[in-house]
């Protein structure tokens, strides 16, 4: 697609492509609501401009589950009721995926650090951490031969 080089990526996704799963809250890199994966790494779409996506592989929450089944991280969030208002959850899920990619079996403390850039204004962190902990176990099981 074509876009002006300085279009903010979050606007490109939400307004031009209608992919409103990516949220904007602070617009300044503090809250993590706009987290996306660029070449598999978590990035903040409010602090990126369209030109930076040239030739890159972008994954938003809409494309996160590659089949009809939920990704283990999503399933675990659902199983734990780790969602209150839901606004932060797309960012939380993608941040958790980035963490598990780097560290497949994190401690609770490492999970908290991995999600430190994502704010939940409902303050539902405990269940979110529980969910990521379980997702890591599933992830681990799936990777075992």
């Amino acid at each position, binding site marked *: 697609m074509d876009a002006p080089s300085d279009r903010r990526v979050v606007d490109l996704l939400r307004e031009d492509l209608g992919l409103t799963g990516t949220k904007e809250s602070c617009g*300044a890199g503090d809250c993590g609501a706009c987290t996306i994966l660029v070449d598999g790494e978590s990035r903040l779409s409010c602090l990126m401009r369209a030109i930076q996506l040239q030739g890159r592989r972008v994954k938003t929450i809409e494309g996160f589950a590659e089949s009809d089944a939920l990704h283990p991280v999503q399933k675990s969030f659902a199983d734990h009721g780790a969602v209150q208002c839901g606004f932060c959850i797309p960012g939380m899920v993608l941040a958790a995926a*980035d963490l598990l990619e780097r560290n497949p079996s994190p401690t609770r403390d490492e999970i908290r650090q991995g999600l430190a850039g994502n704010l939940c204004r409902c303050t539902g962190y405990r269940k979110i951490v529980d969910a990521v902990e379980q997702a890591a176990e599933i992830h681990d099981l799936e990777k075992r031969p």
Partner: protein
Amino acid sequence: MTRIHLPETLEEVWSIMDREPGIKVYAGGTDLLVRLRRMPEACESLICIERVTEIQGVTEEGDEIVIGAGTTHSRLLEDPIIQRHAAILCRGLEMLGSPPIRHMGTIGGNVANASPAADSLPPLYVLRAFVEIRSRSETRTVPIDRFINGPGQAQIGPHELLTRIRFAKPRGFGIHHYEKIGRRKAQACAVASMAALVAQSPDGLVEEIRLSWGSVGPTVVTCEEVEDAIRGRTLVPATLQSAAGLVEHAVAPIDDVRASAEYRRLVAGNLLLRLAQYREKAFTAEIAEGAERK
């Protein structure tokens, strides 16, 4: 509308700078794009240097470590050379921002942005780092404390780019310590921070010590008087407490939204007291060894 250039080589960067001297440069965008949010029309064009691979990565050149200015904090944290030789830089960078900020932001950006609260700076000051600044025709290498003159005041010309950061491998420093006091752990600017490299003799005497403080002055603060007060002694609370008194005179903090100047002054001194933990550890080890011998 702002036109954004996305060069992949330094040659392309120089061509853009020839045409548009003084053009603002960003890599991760975690500082500049936040500032531009409040004034979207401020720049007609920008250069994003995140794809200039020539200035990314870490290399060893003899006794020196050379870091490309465009290396992200995440890559530095994972780099075996940095982990082995410059643990203190890791201690600073792991406190910086949050995971996505560390995936985006670069060490060159953190340095050139010249915030007194930058988490890379106190470690780079005690590592006695140099910055390499290049233009199409010239390369100059400047000690980091001469490169930064005040908040946001990096000495860089309209045709220049910060390309590398280099420092001699620190030798013999058993303690690589960085502590940051902030309103919360992640995402918070430091209220005060301190970096320390300390070399102790086997019996716990401080043979060499280098200290620096962030967020308690217009630039990172260093103070030889404080280092002299600790050198030749052990890291016991009494020594550190009296040195802490000197720190309170050496720093020049301000009041802002995060903390008062008075609080910062007190904390800057108190951060030194934390070094006693390393003496205590040495002590416990000695006691354990003694017990084993018996």
